């Protein structure tokens, strides 16, 4: 049965709910998720065929099974930040990438998110960021969510920083953020407030253009 599963050409298939851990493991190793065709992906994203090819080759090399699960994701992301602990932020990132909440990132998810981040419009990028911050996906960013995110970012810095990292630095950062973003001072930031505040800030606007040549 595992072999049958493996030879099926799956098109954006949802991962089967696992009954047994052994079955699950077998499935994970046998399942070879293949993405949609190159043409479809090119139509859906803002990348050219060549760029998609390069991206897929790298993706497939790291994850021959075609999907990334959260642990692998955390591992990969942590390698870029050897000083500190990147796992918390990687967790939030993973949830932001995994739009279908399937627990694993397929190539389509990966490329869709990259397309937004690198080639999307300003509004799209800010929307993606808002979704990243809104951990529970209720449409509002409250202080706790923001504090979690900020703390996760500060964790990535590690211990040895200059100046010395104070314990209330995240909190103060969050306070500053809310002061700027929360227009009606109701304690939460909605998408509109967020978009508005960011568009007012020239710094942010300018920085958003920076990452376009990443690929």
């Amino acid at each position, binding site marked *: 049965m595992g072999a049958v599963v493996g030879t099926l050409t799956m098109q954006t298939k949802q991962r089967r709910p696992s009954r047994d851990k052994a079955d699950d493991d077998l499935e994970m190793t046998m399942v070879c998720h293949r993405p949609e065709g190159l043409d479809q992906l090119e139509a859906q994203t803002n990348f050219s065929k060549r760029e998609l090819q390069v991206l897929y080759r*790298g993706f497939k090399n*790291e994850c021959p099974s075609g999907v990334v699960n959260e642990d692998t994701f955390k591992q990969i*992301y942590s390698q870029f930040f050897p000083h500190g602990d990147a796992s918390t932020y990687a967790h939030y990132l993973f949830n932001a990438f995994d739009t279908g909440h399937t627990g694993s990132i397929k190539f389509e998810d990966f490329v869709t998110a990259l397309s937004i981040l690198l080639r999307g419009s300003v509004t799209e990028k800010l929307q993606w960021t808002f979704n990243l911050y809104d951990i529970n996906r209720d449409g509002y960013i409250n202080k706790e969510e923001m504090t979690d995110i*900020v703390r996760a970012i500060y964790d990535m810095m590690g211990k040895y*920083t200059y100046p*010395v990292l104070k314990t209330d630095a995240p909190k103060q950062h969050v306070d500053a953020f809310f002061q700027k973003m929360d227009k009606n001072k109701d304690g939460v930031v909605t998408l509109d407030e967020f978009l508005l505040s960011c568009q007012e800030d020239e*710094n942010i606007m300018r920085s958003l253009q920076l990452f376009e040549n990443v690929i």
Partner: protein
Amino acid sequence: MAAGVATWLPFARAAAVGWLPLAKKTMPKPPVDNSSRSDEILYLNVSGVRFQTWKNTLDRYPDTLLGSSEKEFFFNEDTEEYFFDRDHEMFRHILNFYRTGKLHYPRHECIQAFDEELAFYGIVPEIIGDCCMEEYRDRKKENQERLAEDTEANEVMDAPLPPDSTPRERLWRAFENPHTSTMALVFYYVTGFFIAVSVIANVVETVPCRPPEGRVKDLPCGEKYQLAFFCMDTACVLIFTFEYLMRLFAAPSRCKFMRSVMSVIDVVAIMPYYIGLVMPENEDVSGAFVTLRVFRVFRIFKFSRHSQGLRILGYTLKSCASELGFLLFSLTMAIIIFATVMFYAEKGTKGSTFTSIPASFWYTIVTMTTLGYGDMVPNTIAGKIFGSICSLSGVLVIALPVPVIVSNFSRIYHQNQRADKRRAQQKVRLARIRMAKKGTTNAFLQYKEDRALGDRDSDSTALCVKNRSAFEHQHHHLLHCLEKTTNHEFTDELTYSELCMTESVGFRTSRSTSLSSQQGAQNNPTGCCPRRARRRAAMRLANSTASVSRGSVQELDTLHVKTTSIPPQTRSSLNAQADDLKLNCGEQDFTAAIISIPTPPANTPDESLPPSPAPIPGILRNTRATAYTHETVKISSL
């Protein structure tokens, strides 16, 4: 970094968009990637066999030959391929390393040839995967040992003495390596001869000789030719004493020498003679003296200096001690059990030789080792039954542990060697991984320094950055963005501890307080953020760089570090805005400080570069010292 990680870098950088709304400072500009975007297939011709691979594959490990620009030296323009005049079979493994990230060691290849290939392609052997690592290490160790033995043997034979050695060193060398000079050789043989003479004399003097005239009983030769034997003994002991004293004099470490086994044997061999000299001719004491003479037989152990085999045997027994101990213990158990049984079985009989349990020990030992002297024999039926059981079990008890000991010895011997190897390797591996991690930190700090320097002088930027790959540029830019987001910077452990020290030393130093009085907000020791938040809210975007630098200089002041006067050439526009600040900084004269701030890096207003005064000489010193080590120890995969 691991192979595939390079391919995920774009994703990590894209994810940095998530930091942007939080960033307190503007992001630095990303590095411009001038290399061609499209991925191309490269042709590698290795001794006629053509390999093809993507350029990206080779770029995964930028610090190897194939991943760096070094391969351009091998580019053949006529055929548009990279030509390597090396072994193509080995190259297959090298190329697979790039593809899969794991290096395998082909078992049928010579270890030295493999090492040479790795060295040529700039690949560190530590990356060999776990599947092949042990084999590789074993072969390598074996090879090294063999080579070491050969060279050692050669050396010992032919090495001339260092010209300025003292007579003491020469003497020691003569003792340790008798082959070096003829005198030493002569002395070696003479002592050997005398050892043999002494041992033979000890043996012969107990042989019965024909009695002299007038006596009936046979006399041991020792008593008949007492004078002759005494003279021979004296001569031998004199020689041995002389040798021992010479060795003691020549030894580089006398205490260590006196504790060594050979010197103990020497002492034990000659002591009885001297004790015999001083002892009076007393009947009672001479009985004890006679037992002392037994120790003269230890002279035979002096032969172990002359024989390698004896030494190995001694080492073997020492290393096998636990097995031997077990054998002894199990034998003892069996002996006690059977002796008890036999004693009680034979207790009743008249004239039984089994008088006590200890007396039965002798019977048990003789029976179990299948000697069977017959001096003690069971008479009862029960005794005979148990006696036969005893002899049968004796065969088993003795025959079984012996091969186990033999194989144990060989297994333990090899195992010990391997365990030591592994422990040393583990330590080395961890040390290398730690150094590589430090290397990435230091690489980043070095990058920041270079950026700071480079901004002032665009020419040097080109020089500094050419050694860094595109991957590193982008990675460093990413880390830089994170710094900007959190408004903290990465430092290394040393500087961090220095910082902690300065903070704890005290905020109130005896310096001119003009700065602190003017900057009222400064006396807040808990940090920069509220101030900066206020500043940020108040700042106009046009002066963003200026305000931020003001904030950062302020922040430095809370640490109460020593400042040098800021030279006027740096960014007059910037300093003009922070006028009051500059004056005070210029006049500052701080006490007690470890760190000194250099000039803030030059910053043209149009670029949103980090105006951070980060490269503090203290940090600079550290990173400069360690930044270059990462070039040598960097491994391409974690």
